[in-house]
């Protein structure tokens, strides 16, 4: 059915095959129209009407919901179309807060971009008074919601429902009174939001933005009494470059270390190191559970949004969750506890741990009751990029540098944590060794890989000397819920369930540079991680010499008392409301 057909765009004949919409044909042929509500990974919605085109000189149509037809003539920039788009922009700006200079999304806002491109220099409608704007919701540690900047494109509502199956955000009221909000206008902290930040990632304006920790980080850097230590999550290294016009997926970790030093961080460590540590503990925990045959399947606990989802929706399953802290959660207490041993002049109480994460939920994780005082400040990839820009560092031309020892070395198994399937793959590589005492020869589990929309649930079977270990890899909580229902119905037989709340895993996290306009960006980032894994000499966590040294010099045995105290955590039932007996 790949018959080539043609239509005309701006009088140029173009071919199309299986494109579903005229918008796709337009973009595949080097043309473009503006869009707000169109997101490749979400359903077509047709709300913003910015993508309108003039068909055959007669009709105005929204190209994002219009199937292509043979021979039609499409005008993307006719006078009529441009005039309508300009009016739409003006109307969107009519009740918009219009505070671009001080807006968190400034420079990264599609509304601002199109307003500039369409030359909106004058808005006929007067600005509302300050008191008429909606109250800003910054009640939670991760996200800030400002309805007065919302253009009702519904991207966040779709992301919450289609990725997380959760619909914390919804439309309320009707007509000109329509707003996007959680149940009955409550704050995000008041409902079961997991802070994954996907709503923020798809928001074209400043209506949902990341709660910035930049100023606090500058303050500690400039505080001479503090020793500021920074750590970088796996997925940051393949995305940060995009903010500096580098290719998506290009691994810039050497430059990131260099930039962090120039920003004034005292020591640079890598969350990848503690990802290896996580595998040691979690692999050990899994093997224990497997031999005893209890509390299976084991749920991974790296993703804070997933942890919060279980706590709020399925507290009865918390026993399945690995007690291991996330890599961020492991490195911080280890740094605070053992760094004074390796570096002179470092005192536990003076150390400030800053982490750079692809994730908004990590900000929430750091404030968890059980983890308080460990990770002090959490920046997202976006915020860290902004700090580099503020400092005027020429990121592109930086020479690669190394992280500091003793928490800077990592294996290939750690770096793939950043893509959906990576944690499970890394765990299996080491679990095989823990069980059999032998090294696995073929360590590439391709069936666990893949971050596109078709591979959100992946199954793999690993043969550990006769024991068939079934691994289920899931990204998005909507898919996770399906696996949970299977489990509750007694229809599941998997032993490990890896869940990442963001579609494709951390590479597509809510704190990463904007990637919602191109579905292939997350694939490129994942490819960057797997390439690094392939090129590293050490590709298994239990081979990381610095991790082994840490156990030898500080922690004692794997899963031992000290390790348990520092590297493991507890969970709590956060189920709310009077409907406890259901589900």
């Amino acid at each position, binding site marked *: 059915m790949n018959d080539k057909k043609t239509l005309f765009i701006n009088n140029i004949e173009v071919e199309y095959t299986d494109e579903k919409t005229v918008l796709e044909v337009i973009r595949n042929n080097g043309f473009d129209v503006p869009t707000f509500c169109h997101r490749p990974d979400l359903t077509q919605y047709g709300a913003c009407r910015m993508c309108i085109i003039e068909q055959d000189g007669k009709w105005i149509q929204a190209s994002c919901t219009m199937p292509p037809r043979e021979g039609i003539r499409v005008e993307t920039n006719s006078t009529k179309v441009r005039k309508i788009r300009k009016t739409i922009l003006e109307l969107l700006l009519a009740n918009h807060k219009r505070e671009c200079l001080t807006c968190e999304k400034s420079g990264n806002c599609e509304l601002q971009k199109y307003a500039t491109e369409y030359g909106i220099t004058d808005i006929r409608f007067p600005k509302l008074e300050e008191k008429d704007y909606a109250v800003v919701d910054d009640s939670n540690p991760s996200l800030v919601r400002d309805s007065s900047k919302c253009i009702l494109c519904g991207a966040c509502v779709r992301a919450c429902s289609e990725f997380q199956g959760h619909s914390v*955000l919804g439309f309320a009221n009707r007509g000109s009174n329509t707003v996007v909000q959680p*149940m009955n206008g409550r704050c995000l902290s008041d*409902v079961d939001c997991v802070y994954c930040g996907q709503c923020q990632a798809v928001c074209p304006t400043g209506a949902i933005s990341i709660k910035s920790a930049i100023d606090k980080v500058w303050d500690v850097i400039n505080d001479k009494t503090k020793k500021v230590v920074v750590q970088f999550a796996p997925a940051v290294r393949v995305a940060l470059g995009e903010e500096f016009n580098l290719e998506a997926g290009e691994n810039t970790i050497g430059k990131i270390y260099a930039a962090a030093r120039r920003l004034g961080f005292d020591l640079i460590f890598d969350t990848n190191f503690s990802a290896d540590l996580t595998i040691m503990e979690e692999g050990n925990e899994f093997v224990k559970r497997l031999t005893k045959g209890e509390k299976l399947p084991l749920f991974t606990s790296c993703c804070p949004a997933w942890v919060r989802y279980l706590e709020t929706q399925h507290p009865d399953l918390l026993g399945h969750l690995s007690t291991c802290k996330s890599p961020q959660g492991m490195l911080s207490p280890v740094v605070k506890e053992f760094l004074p041993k390796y570096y002179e002049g470092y005192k536990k109480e003076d150390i400030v741990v800053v982490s750079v994460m692809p994730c908004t939920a990590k900000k929430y994780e750091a404030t968890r009751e059980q983890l308080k005082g460990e990770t002090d400040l959490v920046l997202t990839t976006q915020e860290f990029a902004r700090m580099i820009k503020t400092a005027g560092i020429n990121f592109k031309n930086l020479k690669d540098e190394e992280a500091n020892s003793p928490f800077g070395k990592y294996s290939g198994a750690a770096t793939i944590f950043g893509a959906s399937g990576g944690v499970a793959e890394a765990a299996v590589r080491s679990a095989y060794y823990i069980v059999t005492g032998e090294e696995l020869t073929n360590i590439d589990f391709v069936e666990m890989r893949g971050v596109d929309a078709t591979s959100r649930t992946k199954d793999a079977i690993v043969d550990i000397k006769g024991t068939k270990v079934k691994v289920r890899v899931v990204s998005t909580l909507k898919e996770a819920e399906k696996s949970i229902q299977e489990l509750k119905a007694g229809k599941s037989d998997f032993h490990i369930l890896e869940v990442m709340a963001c579609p494709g895993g951390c590479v597509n996290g809510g704190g990463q540079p904007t990637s919602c306009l191109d579905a292939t960006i997350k694939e490129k980032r994942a490819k960057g991680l797997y390439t690094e894994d392939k090129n590293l000499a050490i590709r298994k966590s239990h081979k990381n010499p610095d991790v082994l040294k840490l156990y030898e010099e500080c922690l004692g045995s794997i899963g031992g008392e000290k390790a348990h105290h520092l590297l493991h955590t507890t969970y709590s039932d956060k189920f709310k*409301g*009077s*409907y406890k007996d259901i589900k």
Partner: protein
Amino acid sequence: MSVESPAGINTAKLDEIIQTYGGKKSYLIAILQKVQEIYKYLPEEAMTYIGTKIEGLSPATVFGVATFYAQFSLEPKGKYEIKVCDGTACHVRGSMPVIEAIKGKLQLKDGKMTTENGLFSFETVSCLGACGLAPAVVINDKVYPQMTPDSIKIIIDTLLKENE
């Protein structure tokens, strides 16, 4: 009829209603109508419960449906629900003075639609289809034709007396 407080919603009753409709999300409007019959409005707790219980829905989605349709009320209704028709015919025959008279008589201010004592609630509705009786007022399903500010005050006084 006693209205239960929002904190004390009867979940067994809600379950029964949800079950009547097979727990399907496509019946949400019908379910909300039944709930409103019981409470005379939609308590937030009830909407949260329904949104959590029915697969494919969430509290925010249920709230969205409840606020989209004018037939649903999020505020407790009074013992007497006064509906004043403000359709075209009633409007030109003087529904506005009637509305003002009711608001004044019941001392409803700042967008409040239910009296403090819970006896009266008031709303304007679109055409009731009784244009021949314009301006028309409906109190608890009883139609009062050709209202004037004076006549509506007398009716309210009568109802007040009945409840003394």
